[in-house]
């Protein structure tokens, strides 16, 4: 720092500026203490849950069990991704379970019964989801119908539609040799590809971090420093490599999970780096302010509902692939709760305006770890429901407490 002229953003001498790794750590601790918990609760929760279940039954941590867990996580994870979109606006969609069930039924009927090509059937199912989302958005915008009522009505109506199109047999088996079922049950990335994909995020972080620092320096703005970027990239790469190595001891990384993570990354980009994403956070934080700054609030709402139902529909297709069937039971039971719980546990606020696409990924891992661990302990589904319910309650309590703490520390 031989530059004597203060950078554009460092003119105010009253502010402490955190630089380097120590600064980044200090800033992080400050944030957590003021209630800006971010991903911390879910990371701690995941470690705790894994430790407890491993002690109770060592099979939990076996590579192949984790591979299965990832297979199971993809479908609910996709649904949770859609839930993140509506939660960001402070809305909710309670019909995601029914929507996923309906979509699996549509896939089954179009593909197996009507003999349409598989891609067309999937497109049809997702389109149905988009239509339902459009309807919810319309009800919310036109009639100011609270989304929890509209989607509660949808929960019932969509379930009815699912039963109707499945007909009296009530269940359609998907052919085991078909690409869809293989995708849902067998297909694993080649080891070399998994390792490459594990290294890529770190490399990208390094590249974009260096770019940002260079551009900020050119614009006479300060940066946290390259050391922070390197540390982050190194930590991420090591974590991903260890994870892939461990999974490769078993069957490997499921394609299904890979596709889910791809969707997470795309949504993350859209939410953080595009005008649409900025508008989503603005509408969730203060809809009136967003409206006055010229954002089309109704269109943003519509987009969120459409995305949510479409993701739910795609999740339904994934679930059908996983189970190799489209049945009356698809999407019922705990699917709704699990998907919403995943988003909330991952750190997306129920009150709108806060959250991230990653919360769907982390949250669904927690939910699936609990469900998987309890199954390994041979607990009945009655106990599993109760425990999952308690975990959701705890997540919401943490969310509320953190919100209160943020308010008292002058953070949103």
């Amino acid at each position, binding site marked *: 720092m031989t530059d004597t002229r203060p950078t554009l953003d460092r003119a105010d001498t009253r502010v402490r500026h955190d630089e380097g790794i120590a600064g980044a750590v200090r800033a992080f601790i400050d944030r957590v203490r003021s209630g800006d918990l971010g991903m911390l609760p879910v990371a701690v929760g995941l470690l705790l849950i894994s430790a407890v279940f491993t002690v109770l039954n060592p099979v939990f941590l076996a590579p192949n069990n984790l591979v299965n867990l990832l297979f199971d996580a993809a479908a609910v994870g996709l649904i949770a991704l859609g839930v993140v979109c509506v939660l960001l606006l402070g809305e909710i969609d309670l019909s995601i379970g029914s929507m996923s069930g309906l979509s699996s039924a549509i896939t089954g009927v179009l593909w197996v019964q009507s003999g349409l090509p598989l891609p067309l059937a999937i497109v049809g199912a997702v389109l149905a989801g988009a239509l339902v989302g459009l309807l919810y958005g319309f009800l919310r915008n036109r009639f100011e119908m609270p989304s929890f009522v509209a989607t509660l009505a949808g929960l019932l109506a969509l379930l009815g539609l699912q039963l109707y199109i499945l007909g009296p047999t009530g269940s359609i088996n998907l052919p085991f040799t078909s690409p869809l079922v293989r995708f849902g049950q067998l297909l694993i990335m080649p080891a070399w590809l998994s390792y490459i994909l594990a290294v890529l995020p770190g490399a990208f972080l390094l590249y974009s971090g260096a770019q940002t620092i260079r551009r900020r320096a050119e614009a006479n703005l300060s940066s946290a420093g390259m050391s922070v970027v390197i540390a982050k990239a190194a930590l991420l790469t090591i974590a991903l490599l260890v994870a892939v190595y461990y999974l490769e001891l078993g069957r490997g990384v499921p394609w299904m999970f890979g596709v889910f993570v791809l969707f997470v990354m795309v949504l993350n980009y859209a939410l953080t780096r595009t005008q649409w994403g900025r508008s989503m956070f603005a509408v969730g934080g203060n809809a009136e302010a967003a409206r006055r700054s*010229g954002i089309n609030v109704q269109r943003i709402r519509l987009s969120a509902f459409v995305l949510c139902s479409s993701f739910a529909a795609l999740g339904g297709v994934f679930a059908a692939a996983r189970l190799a069937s489209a049945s009356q039971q698809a999407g019922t039971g705990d699917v709704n709760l699990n998907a919403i719980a995943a988003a909330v546990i991952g750190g997306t606020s129920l009150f709108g*305006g806060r959250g991230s696409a990653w919360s769907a990924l982390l949250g669904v891992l927690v939910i699936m770890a609990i469900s998987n661990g309890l199954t390994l302990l041979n607990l009945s589904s009655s106990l599993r429901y109760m425990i999952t319910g308690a975990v959701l309650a705890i997540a919401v309590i943490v969310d509320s407490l953190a919100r209160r703490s943020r308010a008292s520390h002058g953070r949103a």
Partner: protein
Amino acid sequence: MNGTGESLTKGDLILSLRGVSKQFGAVTALADIELDIHAGEVVALVGDNGAGKSTLVKVLAGVHQPTSGTIQYMGREVNFDTPGKALEMGIATVFQDLALCENLDVVANLFLGHEVNPWRLDEVQMEVRAWTLLQELAARIPSVREPIASLSGGQRQTVAIARSLLLDPKIIMLDEPTAALGVAQTAEVLNLIERVRDRGHGVILISHNMEDVRAVADRIVVLRLGRNNGVFTAESSHQDLVAAITGATENSVSRRAARKLEEAER
């Protein structure tokens, strides 16, 4: 970004309202309002609580639509049917409640709805422009990467004003901009208003603070119970102004002044 399509010279008529009325059910909030705004002038809008100032601002900002009357903007008759349209045509508003998103940081709030590069937000360029703008206003914002929730009232006001200037509007409307500000910041805002006026923008200033109004306003338009009640200049006497605002030469302000005078004489 398209605020200044045609260049204006000082004194050109930008906006003119004729017979504008607004009714909320049985309540007539505005009745037959006439108002002209020229380039390079500061028009203060004063009046008691409930005089219709805020309603008039909301009509011009596209938040409310007038029940009747015409609005001419740049010589053409227009409808400001959405806030976005008013903004696009070059009428920027700083509302009394500021309308900031507390969960977003300063940069995001400044550029809300007008982000640089919609498909790949250019954070560096936005941050540079944010700092440049804030330094022009001599604003003391600790960090533009903090959420608005962590800023003080005065700092929020500054951010709100800075945001309205971002699009280089023809008219900027300020609803009670100095109500929450300290002495130095009030002076800064008044300086800023003059700077904006000197750049050829029209400024509509709404304030209860007569001192601030007299300091910067070229014309003072008085509203009373939703109607025009006289136009004054900074040279007009305080009594005349108060009389127009309260609707009587004999009012609580004059009575109080008379009583004080009596007490002093005794």
